[in-house]
């Protein structure tokens, strides 16, 4: 059992400590301030607000800290309307043991989280804390853990790590967004024992400078992890068990892995199935979509592909959480097709490898990007006639976002003056002597052999802001996108092409090599 003088949250960068005592006094202050919509200003702010919701069974809609005005407006919100506190009177004071039990899944709180929506905009998904806490384990051994928080606290993975820590009264060390020296220093200084993060996060800790034997548990999720990374992590964390997990934003942990071979998580047999070579999830595991009053989605309303769960696979059912007795329904509309293709390794017990994840999504360092959303934004630029956004494999971030642009012809009503001020500025910043040539660049295997001529027939220079065709530059389009999208959604490679490749059915291709 945790005591109140124990650190609740340590800022990995500054070392600033917030104690459980301080958390509890926030919960027990009168009148209690509750926010129903929160765009957190800091990690402490985010976790405090989540804790208030968990403690009092409230509904809390969380917004990413880096959502800009435009993204909020598109979702129907404004910064002004968020973060408005409402005073409420708590029924009774709450103590730490009660709070821990609530975090373990007894809370009736519901959290509204945004996932990348299939139609372009991020989509609101309401999750019960009971569902989010499904993989939480409570035990005296778990209570000794010191958790690193490497995920965004407004995303499902961050919340799951937090609930795991809170349910056991553990200390959390915030390493979200820190650079490598700061992460490594924080892990050592604060004696972190448990880490859950994306493969991209772990890749940034390499090469191994010196091993960290204090870490006992390392969980990877959100992206596929190759054997080489797992091998390096075994060097970096010689005393740690490595866990590779798999989950969806809707359903929490679904699968557990041994290396790259997956099994359905304990207790979910019958509700997660492999059908037609793809993973299907029963609606009873899905969160609610859109307004909290709306029922589960219709099939085909893909809100999100498989994402990640940050907690190690649960080895036994959590008995403290009441789950309805489940009888699988044969009806198709009760099943959600994740779109994730598997290769079955063994039927009894069922073991499989994940061959392909939902194709359209681009996973940039654990952040799933919906190319439709980015295409929508780039397409708003008056100089753009057609755009294709796709992922390209990358050894740093898993994937990097790329875009191909067909420029609007000048007589197509191009109005660069509307949004093109930056174009002019960017061009001025680029002296002619910096102009690059194609330089005989070689193509990587499998790379697309796309036309390198512009719409006007001018030679397209090799990459960078020097890819200047007509009146539009890569740098300008990037600025345009950066003003409207979260940083990981901004394409890092933009190429100007004559035409966009389509499939035989007329759909744009999402894989590299279009």
């Amino acid at each position: 059992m945790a005591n109140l003088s124990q650190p609740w949250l340590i800022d990995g960068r500054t070392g600033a400590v917030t104690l459980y005592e301080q958390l509890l006094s926030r919960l027990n202050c009168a009148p209690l301030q509750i926010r129903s919509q929160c765009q957190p200003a800091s990690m402490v702010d985010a976790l405090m607000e989540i804790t208030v919701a968990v403690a009092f069974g409230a509904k809390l809609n969380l917004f990413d800290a880096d959502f800009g005005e435009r993204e909020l407006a598109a979702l129907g919100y404004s910064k002004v309307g968020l973060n408005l506190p409402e005073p409420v009177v708590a029924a009774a004071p709450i103590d730490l043991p009660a709070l821990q039990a609530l975090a373990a899944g007894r809370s009736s709180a519901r959290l509204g989280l945004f996932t990348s929506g299939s139609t372009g905009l991020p989509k609101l998904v309401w999750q019960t804390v009971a569902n989010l806490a499904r993989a939480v384990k409570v035990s005296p051994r778990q209570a000794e853990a010191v958790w690193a928080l490497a995920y965004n606290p407004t995303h499902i993975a961050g919340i799951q790590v937090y609930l795991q820590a809170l349910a056991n009264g553990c200390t959390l060390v915030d390493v979200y967004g820190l650079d490598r020296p700061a992460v490594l220093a924080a892990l050592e200084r604060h004696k972190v024992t448990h880490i859950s993060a994306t493969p991209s996060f772990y890749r940034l800790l390499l090469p191994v400078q010196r091993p960290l034997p204090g870490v006992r548990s390392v969980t990877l999720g959100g992206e596929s992890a190759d054997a080489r990374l797992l091998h390096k992590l075994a060097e970096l964390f010689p005393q740690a068990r490595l866990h590779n997990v798999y989950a969806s934003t809707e359903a929490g942990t679904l699968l557990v892995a041994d290396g790259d071979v997956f099994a359905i998580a304990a207790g979910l047999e019958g509700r997660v199935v492999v059908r037609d070579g793809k993973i299907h999830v029963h609606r009873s595991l899905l969160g609610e979509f859109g307004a909290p009053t709306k029922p589960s989605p219709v099939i085909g309303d893909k809100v999100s592909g498989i994402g990640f769960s940050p907690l190690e696979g649960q080895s036994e059912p959590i008995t403290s959480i009441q789950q309805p007795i489940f009888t699988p329904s044969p009806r198709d509309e009760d099943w959600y097709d994740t779109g994730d293709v598997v290769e079955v390794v063994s039927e009894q017990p069922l073991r499989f490898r994940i061959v392909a994840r939902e194709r359209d999504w681009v996973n940039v360092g654990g952040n799933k990007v919906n190319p439709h959303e980015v295409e929508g934004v780039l397409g708003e630029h008056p100089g753009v006639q057609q755009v294709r956004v796709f992922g390209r494999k990358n050894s740093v971030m898993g994937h990097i976002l790329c875009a191909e642009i067909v420029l609007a012809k000048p007589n197509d009503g191009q109005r660069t003056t509307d949004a093109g001020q930056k174009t002019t500025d960017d061009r001025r910043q680029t002296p002619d002597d910096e102009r690059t040539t194609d330089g005989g660049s070689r193509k990587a295997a499998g790379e697309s052999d796309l036309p390198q001529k512009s719409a006007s027939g001018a030679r397209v220079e090799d990459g960078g802001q020097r890819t200047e065709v007509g009146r539009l530059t890569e740098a300008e389009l990037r600025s345009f996108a950066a003003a409207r999208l979260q940083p990981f959604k901004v394409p890092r490679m933009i190429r100007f092409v004559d035409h966009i490749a389509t499939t035989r059915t007329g759909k744009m291709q999402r894989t590299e090599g279009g």
Partner: protein
Amino acid sequence: MNKELLEVINQVRANKNLAKLSSYNAGDRLREEMGFESLDLAELTVRIEEKFNVDVFSDGLVESVGEIEAKLARTEKI
């Protein structure tokens, strides 16, 4: 100093609105001296791969410009 590499570094810097460099030192660290974050490093990798056909980050993260140069030189010899 590898001028083509400098060009690629400057491309990534320009996309971050950082000033163009006229030279670099082999010991310059990508994060500290060059001001690159994870997404910038990812972009740098892809642009180097386009130009040199070498994935410099494939066997773990490199820290300095000199390490990239060394990897490029090693590959050229093969």
